[in-house]
């Protein structure tokens, strides 16, 4: 350790010795990326943040002198204003929340299930299955959306197949009814209790918040699960192949059955991958845009309107750039909050005492003393 005393300080570029100038070289090498990220990522984000606090009208530079700072006005008009912008934002949040609530668990479960299937060594033609499951993820979302519009049209393939088993399928992309409301209507419940219908949040009554995704949105939900589970399957396969067999074997020796091995041994080891998949899924689901833009533009009855599409339409079509930017930043906040929550929920926890006790040999009372 005596050598370290003699070592020259490595700070800055002014150092002496063979390592001098290293820091400078480091900056030179990272500069291109810093510049590119700065110009194309950081600066636009900062500008958008400024737009969300300004009254920029879409003409000329948002940094010019005649653009005024309006504080939280843009945020207020979409959250507490009570007018059409507020209601639109409420509707879009409602739609997207249901979308997230259904897509994220379904796609995670399905991709894990598919990964377990194609990971088995005894399966013949694993490669073919993997490619088949992954294929929808490769195809452009626009192409898939167009395909979906055909499949789920009133006289489309899906309804044709449903008719074979005597079901009169809905006119999927034209049906604005929420599926929870539909289910309740089947039991004769068509209006909610006054507590739900008379109180509202973001201009939308609680009864409407609980309507569930519309039939049209359900078609999009099925599509999202179909297209994304292939990608996540790949992540799970990679994780599964990294698991060592001896833990499994040890569990087998202990007499754990297949279900217990999956639930108690495999799944806990997949936690980092699970976190990745859930996070990517959450982010992707809150940002859903392409499908809406190419498919329904928010219709029918605004039930496929999402914050991402609303942000686009209020900026580019409605010329309300501040509101559009504000929606984008609220969306950003939502995603961050969800990710943090998920990190907290999936954190490594010490084994609970109750659980730990199961694995400890029962001790005679005398030994305690």
């Amino acid at each position, binding site marked *: 350790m005596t050598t370290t005393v003699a070592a020259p300080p490595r700070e800055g570029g002014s150092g002496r010795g063979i390592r001098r100038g290293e820091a400078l070289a480091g900056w030179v090498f990272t500069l291109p990326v*810093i510049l590119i990220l700065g110009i194309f990522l950081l600066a636009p984000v900062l500008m958008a943040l400024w737009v969300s606090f300004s009254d920029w009208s879409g003409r000329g530079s948002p940094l010019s002198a005649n653009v005024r700072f309006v504080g939280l006005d843009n945020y207020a008009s979409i959250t507490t204003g009570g007018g*059409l912008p507020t209601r639109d934002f409420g509707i879009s949040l409602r739609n997207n929340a249901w979308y997230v609530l259904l897509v994220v668990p379904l796609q995670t479960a399905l991709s894990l299930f598919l990964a377990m299937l194609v990971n088995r060594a005894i399966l013949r033609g694993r490669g073919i299955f993997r490619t088949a499951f992954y294929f929808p993820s490769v195809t452009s979302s626009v192409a898939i959306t167009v395909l979906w519009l055909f499949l789920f049209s009133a006289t489309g393939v899906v309804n044709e197949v449903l008719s074979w088993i005597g079901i009169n399928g809905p006119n999927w992309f034209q049906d604005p009814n929420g599926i929870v409301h539909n289910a309740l209507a089947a039991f004769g419940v068509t209006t909610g209790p006054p507590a739900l219908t008379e109180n509202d949040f973001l201009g939308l009554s609680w009864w409407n918040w609980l309507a569930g995704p519309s039939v049209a949105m359900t078609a999009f939900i099925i599509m999202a699960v179909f297209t994304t589970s292939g990608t996540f399957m790949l992540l799970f396969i990679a994780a599964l192949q990294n698991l060592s067999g001896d833990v499994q074997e040890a569990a087998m020796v202990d007499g754990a059955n297949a279900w217990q091995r999956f639930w108690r041994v495999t799944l806990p080891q997949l936690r980092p991958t699970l976190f990745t998949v859930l996070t990517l899924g959450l982010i992707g689901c809150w940002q859903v845009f392409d499908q809406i833009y190419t498919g329904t533009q928010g219709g029918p*009855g605004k039930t496929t309107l999402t914050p991402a599409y609303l942000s686009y339409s209020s900026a580019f079509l409605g010329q309300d750039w501040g509101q559009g930017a504000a929606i984008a930043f609220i969306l950003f906040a939502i995603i961050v909050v969800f990710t943090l929550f998920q990190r907290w929920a999936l954190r490594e926890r010490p084994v609970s005492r109750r659980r730990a006790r199961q694995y400890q040999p029962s001790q005679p009372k005398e030994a305690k003393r």
Partner: protein
Amino acid sequence: MTRHKTRAILGTGALLVTGALALTACGSGFDDGGAGGGDASELTSSEDALTILIGSSGDAETDAVTEAVAAWSEESGIDATVQVANDLPQQLSQGFAAGSPPDLFYLATEALAGYAGNGSLKAYGDLLSNKDDFYPSLVQNFTFEDEFYCAPKDFSTLQLIINQGLWDAAGLTDADIPATWDDLATVAATLTKDGVTGLAFGPEYQRLGAFMAQAGGQLVSDDGTEAVANSPENVEALTYVQEQMAAGNFAYSSDLGAGWGGEAFGKQLSAMTIEGNWIQGAMTNDFPDVDYVVAELPAGPAGQGTMQFTNCWGMAADSPNQQAALDLVEYLTSAEQQLAFSEAFGPMPSAQSAAEQWTADNPDLAAFLAGADYAKGVPTNDGIAAVITDFNAQLEGLKAGDPQQILDTVQENTEAVVG
């Protein structure tokens, strides 16, 4: 530790500097421009070539516009290029924000107020030599805060499209063409059979507005300063449509599994539809075997009424060569040129002097032009587009909804953007 701190500071500093650099770079890239727009008297003039951005319906339209512009270029000696937008509102917004918009572009009525309000548009209407030749209602469509902004390039109206084969098969004759709401209900009921609905149209204000006009109602008063969406007339119109839908005589095209009225009509899911001039091209291309006639929509309690749709030639306030752009607009909106466009891709000339010739050329479509006398335009107030989108969303539920309640919401939303 200190080393880390220095690095962190250095790093942040570098990012901030790049950020600032980027921002200033952007700042200088944008043309902050003057007030523009408002003052109609001064036009910029230079030798600059012109860029024209159009939202084209297809090759026929693109070719026709490109040819016309090329002919003008030849005559005037000023270069001009035509670009076809794949997303017109987005590309226009980008152009305005960057300070380099196209010199001339298609502009929809609902986009006028937004762009005019932020000074992106040049109000050149009063400088046009053929200003008085346009239909007054079209001029009204492109007037914002008492200034005539841009020349209507053409227009379309809605009328009643009737399937000749089904009409004859039901034993109906020319004498049965409906003149009143009662007549319409009767023929629609007669035509409703064998899985065919009498009348189908899109679930939107842009179709149902015709009934509102026939009842004497509209969303915004003629001068654009008062919301009149929940008037008794509008309630009467929606109630009539609702009753007919409940009786099964009318239906939304979406309920029949069609994307729009023309598709329901072409597939013979409905015997009649309410559509505009564009139906002609759709029928020729997609359903050449369906024989149809165009009749005027029936009169409602307040007389005849329909909707009209139009676009104008918008001119950018930032355009460096507005003088030439004005000249080009005059050329493109001249009666002869508009008749040539009409022949190429179907819309009706916005110039009244071309009306007679157009009717002579298109006797079967005369009803569309007749609508110009009593048609109502879509309101042009800033922010009305979101109101109409919301109205459309609610109209989808008209069958089970309450017209008064729907219109009350629309009234509330309209009041927020009017005046």
